[in-house]
């Protein structure tokens, strides 16, 4: 889904960029000289191109956060507070980046209780203090 979106994003980006390119270059090509205003618009075009790429990446990250269960009312503010570099990093591999959340003690406790229960049920014999009835 994300892969498909990425491809779509790229296509849309290319179409959009070429549209911008055409609309800026055409007047200059028709004129005798490249005017200051055309130069200005060419500069703007580069910025707009970068902005298009970033906007598409931001849309990707927004989509990913929504898929991970983020409240739709919160998602825009979360995406907006990311820097361009951070958005880029997330758009590239949000699936691979670690999400820390576990309580190590909680996990230890979970393992302990799990082994305790399996011991009591007679499935394992890890703890000597568990009285195995069926022995």
């Amino acid at each position, binding site marked *: 889904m994300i892969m498909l979106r990425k491809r779509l994003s790229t296509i849309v980006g290319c179409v959009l960029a070429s549209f911008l390119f055409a609309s800026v270059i055409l007047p200059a090509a028709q004129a005798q000289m490249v005017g200051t205003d055309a130069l200005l618009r060419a500069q703007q075009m580069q910025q707009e191109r970068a902005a298009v790429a970033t906007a598409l990446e931001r849309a990707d990250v927004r989509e990913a956060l929504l898929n991970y269960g983020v409240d739709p009312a919160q998602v825009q*503010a979360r995406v907006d507070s990311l820097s361009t570099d951070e958005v880029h990093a997330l758009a590239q591999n949000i699936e691979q980046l670690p*999400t820390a959340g576990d309580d190590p*003690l909680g996990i230890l406790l979970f393992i302990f209780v799990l082994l305790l229960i399996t011991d009591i049920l007679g499935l394992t014999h890890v703890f000597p203090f568990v009285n195995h009835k069926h022995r």
Partner: protein
Amino acid sequence: MVNIGAARLGLGGVLLSGIVACSSLPVPRVDDASLTPQIELTSVAFFPQEDHQCGPAALATVLNAAGAAVTPEELVAQVYLPARQGSLQLELLAAIRRHARVPYVIEPQLDTVLHEVAAGHPVLVLQNLDLSWLPVWHYAVVVGFDLAQRELILRSGREPRALLGFAEFERSWALAQHWALVITPLEQLPVTADETRYLSAVAELEAQQQFAAAAPAYMAALARWPGSVAARFGLGNSRYGLGQFTQAEQEYRELLAPHPTLGVVWNNLAMSLIAQRRWDDARDAAQHALELGGASADAARATLSELNAQAGR
């Protein structure tokens, strides 16, 4: 029967202690001479984590220590990913910006962590308590250390005062690429801050229009690095963003005295003069930026057309 039971207990023990096992990694080198022998930042608040929410808890700990009052519950909506049952590092950085502080990722050495803690700055760390069959990612906050005991004191999960040996910590931290961040009150800097990296972090705050936070952060940076071009430029830009145009002008002029060939500064000076409706001065400054060429020339042209549009009105 007892022997087998004991053997099995041994196996279970190994399994359980895998989380805190010492590894073959060398014990990290610490420059003891430059550090206070022991310290504990007892005033740093403790927020016991709820299920899977060590991110919001650890983040609330460091934000409150840096003077930004916020609860873990408020941060859940800003950094927690329900379907991943955890928080991304990059989202922690973004959330810190939302609370008007500068997120600074410190150098990946234990020495750096200790120096920040010694300076009164708790350090948020990412750990990977690798069980090989179950990677466990965890955020905790280092709030103290004892050089003689070679151990750290952390606010971690549901433990307000977890003790962890240097070597054990190093193992879990290395598996998380030694990632750690520090937040300071805006008028302070991390003691281990690198000029360029710190100013980049402040510049991102400026880019997000957080001028009221960026201005004091730039001022603190200027106090540490008086000759920093980026810090004074950023201070000028923040002043401009706050609508303090004469102060912005002052910063740009102070920068141009020793650096008269910085076109972008001439350009922004022109912008601050346009805001003061000083058309002739603005035109001179923009002209300077234009003549210096390079990247500033394009900006200067835009500034000049802006000037013409406004002055012509």
